């Protein structure tokens, strides 16, 4: 089978293009990261990045709102636009033959949005309704609120914003954010699938090469917290969410951290699933997962269970965190973790969409794309003593715990 190839190019204005040709697919996908996350918003205008991501697709270049969506539909483009903490992400997938045309439309969306004032009120209405919908989704709500408490602001923000922020945002606020944060320096365009590199490089150069760079902004950090909290809601289940600090993707111990998190709660025979669900039948969903910003990272865990069994669920979950630190991992667990992560890596090569997301993430965190062989060797090099030793260093004493439901639980001492 012909192998995949990764290429990259940085344009003089700072924009990075990174691309991987996948010979076995007909589709092509891109992930466009713009340095326009909600971390860059002012707190009084929380919700700006998300509202702007909606506004830019309502007409751009020569096309009005209807014509723009129709043009994307005509090319068969599945797409999404939205803000996260660090970026605004535009992602799209279609047949490889339509990729360049789709990128042309996105050059308009990013650089030449119509930004018509009359569109802002409906967008505000949608943003307010999204906030309300999250109130009706306790599993999502608890994780968003956990991040606000765990990370120092602005790293715990989510793009849904606040009611006060959304009410206050003016069209000029959104324009100013577009002007400042939609810029090539700090932007990454990652493309994967059925592509021809020379043609792609040429097209991206003519679409984005003359895009003017802007000034980088710096962030003021403020503490999050509290690290023990309860949100009251009359639900059937109590939601339990916790987080503790981990190390970033660029850290030399990164693979140790991934291994420890996976063994704790990353697959169906991992410890949390086994102890909480399989042996005790305490809940339907329980997991732990790793997440990373550029300069900070976390292990985030979740369980949802009936109120009368929530205390036991929390206690068993926390005792598994301690057991991992005290007893370490065995070689069978390590083998299982390795098989799972390696299979996922290889299977990711079958999807241009998920591959483009990985390319973009690698570039953001590392400034390069890790070859699959490198990841594979790093996983092979892990040993039970090394992972066990890492587990003793996990900062589970810096735990943030948040519950949501009818009754608070007895939480461990802070």
């Amino acid at each position, binding site marked *: 089978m012909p192998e995949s190839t990764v290429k990259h190019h940085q344009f003089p204005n700072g924009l990075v293009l990174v691309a991987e040709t996948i010979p076995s697919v007909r589709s092509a996908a891109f992930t466009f990261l713009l340095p326009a996350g909600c971390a860059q918003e002012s707190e009084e205008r929380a919700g700006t990045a998300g509202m702007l991501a909606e506004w830019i697709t309502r007409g751009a270049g020569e096309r009005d709102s209807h014509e723009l969506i129709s043009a994307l539909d005509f090319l068969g483009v*599945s797409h999404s636009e939205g803000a996260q903490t660090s970026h605004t992400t535009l992602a799209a997938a279609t047949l490889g033959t339509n990729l360049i045309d789709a990128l042309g439309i996105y050059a308009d969306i990013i650089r030449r949005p119509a930004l018509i004032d009359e569109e802002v009120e409906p967008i505000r209405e949608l943003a307010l309704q999204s906030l309300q*919908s999250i109130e009706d989704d306790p599993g999502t709500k608890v994780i968003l609120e956990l991040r606000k408490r765990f990370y120092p602001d602005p790293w715990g923000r989510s793009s849904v914003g606040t009611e006060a922020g959304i009410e206050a945002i003016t069209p000029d606020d959104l324009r100013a954010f577009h002007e400042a944060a939609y810029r090539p320096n700090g932007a990454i365009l990652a493309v994967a699938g059925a592509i021809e590199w020379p043609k792609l490089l040429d097209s991206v150069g003519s679409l984005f090469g003359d895009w003017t760079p802007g000034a980088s902004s710096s962030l003021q950090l403020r503490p999050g917290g509290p690290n023990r909290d309860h949100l009251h809601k009359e639900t059937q289940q109590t939601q339990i969410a916790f987080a503790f600090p981990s190390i970033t993707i660029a850290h030399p111990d990164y693979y140790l951290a991934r291994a420890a998190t996976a063994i704790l709660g990353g697959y169906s025979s991992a410890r949390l699933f086994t102890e909480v669900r399989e042996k005790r039948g305490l809940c339907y969903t329980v997991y732990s997962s790793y997440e990373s910003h550029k300069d900070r990272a976390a292990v985030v865990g979740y369980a949802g269970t009936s109120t009368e069994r929530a205390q036991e669920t929390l206690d068993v979950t926390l005792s598994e965190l301690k057991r991992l630190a005290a007893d370490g991992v065995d070689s069978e667990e390590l083998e299982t973790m390795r098989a799972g992560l390696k299979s996922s890596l290889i299977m990711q090569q079958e999807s241009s969409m998920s591959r483009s997301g990985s390319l973009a993430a690698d570039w953001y965190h590392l400034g390069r794309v890790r070859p699959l062989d490198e990841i594979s060797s790093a996983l092979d090099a892990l040993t039970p003593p090394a992972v066990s030793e890492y587990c003793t260093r996990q900062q589970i004493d810096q735990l943030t715990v948040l519950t949501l439901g009818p009754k608070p639980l007895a939480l461990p001492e802070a």
Partner: protein
Amino acid sequence: MQFHQTTLPNGLRVIAELNDRARSIATGFFVKAGSRDESLDVSGVSHFLEHMVFKGTPRRGALDVNRDFDRVGAKHNAQTSEEDTLYHVTCLPEYLPKAFDVLSDILRPSLREDDFDTEKKVIIEEIRMYLDSPMSVAYEAVKELHFGGHALGQSILGTVESITDLPVDKMRAYFEKYYSPANIVLAFAGNSDWNDIVRLAEERCGHWSGPPAGRQTAVPRGTGAFKAILRPDDNQQTLIGMFDGPPLESDDRYAAHLLSTILGDHTGSRLYWNLVDPGHADSAEMGYQDYNNAGVFYTFVSCTPEEAQANLGRVDETYKQVMAEGVTEAELTQAKNKVLARNVIRSERPMGRLMSLGFQWTYRHEYMSIESEIEHYSKVTVADIRSVLERYPLTPQTIVSVGPTTDLHQP
């Protein structure tokens, strides 16, 4: 891409679409058994059984099942619908024998009583989780209301009461009846060898026995009724509408799918422009679901309680307009392009192909390559869509509303 099929002497049908450019192989047992096959005294047994299948066999304890899948990095899961229970796994080609050993083993589960009692608690947690979701509550309710007494309206999960009261021997009897090899299709998609597959299937499943199960397939007729369920603590109002559509046996399903894309895709559809773009609803979609001898279109809207009645009116107007005027050539072309690209993208993963292959063979005894699937969509004309609209009027819908207001009525 190569298609193969055979039927083992015990009636198990085995099919495979093999592609040596794929990096993985997906396989699944498609058991023709779901909530519509349940009598009311065992409501939820199909889904509960799906969980119990992972709780062990004479060769494996409950914990061994997950561990043996995870050891070879196999991604396994299962799902239960109104009509099918699907057990599937995706793994690297070299691990297929080991992953299939586990998957085929668990299809002959021990159904031990102590595991049954533990898993009962997990099922009840799953039911409670969905009770906290307005969308799930509304969907269960609208199916029940739309199908009247027809079995397709029965709950997939069952209720806390029906699950609590279910004895293990009733599950064992249900298993005996519906998990016979003649009631199952075993499908493969991805990178493997047909001779190896047949050998694996014969070795692992050749000894299974039992007669075909059969199914009641009376054609349901939607009631068009209306119901408002009060959930005072919800913030948004959730509205689901349902009306009859073509069954999976009909070639009208291609036109039906394109019609639902034109009217209710999450972006660029008529509902999008009429409800979401102006900010009247944070979500407004329409979909099409085909069943064995039945089919439905469904409408889903999430909005503020204050806008709910007006939105019911906007949906109704949207549907009345399309019934009067049909769809345009431009709309149809766009919908085809969207569906085509999405199908190609989905088919690039073996798991994406597996579902389509398995269900086609279960209900139509037919192989359809991705190319011929696309061809079927390409052939649909504006007149075909009009003909579907004439046979399946979009109004009145059966409607369920869930949320803080009950002051609503049929538009």
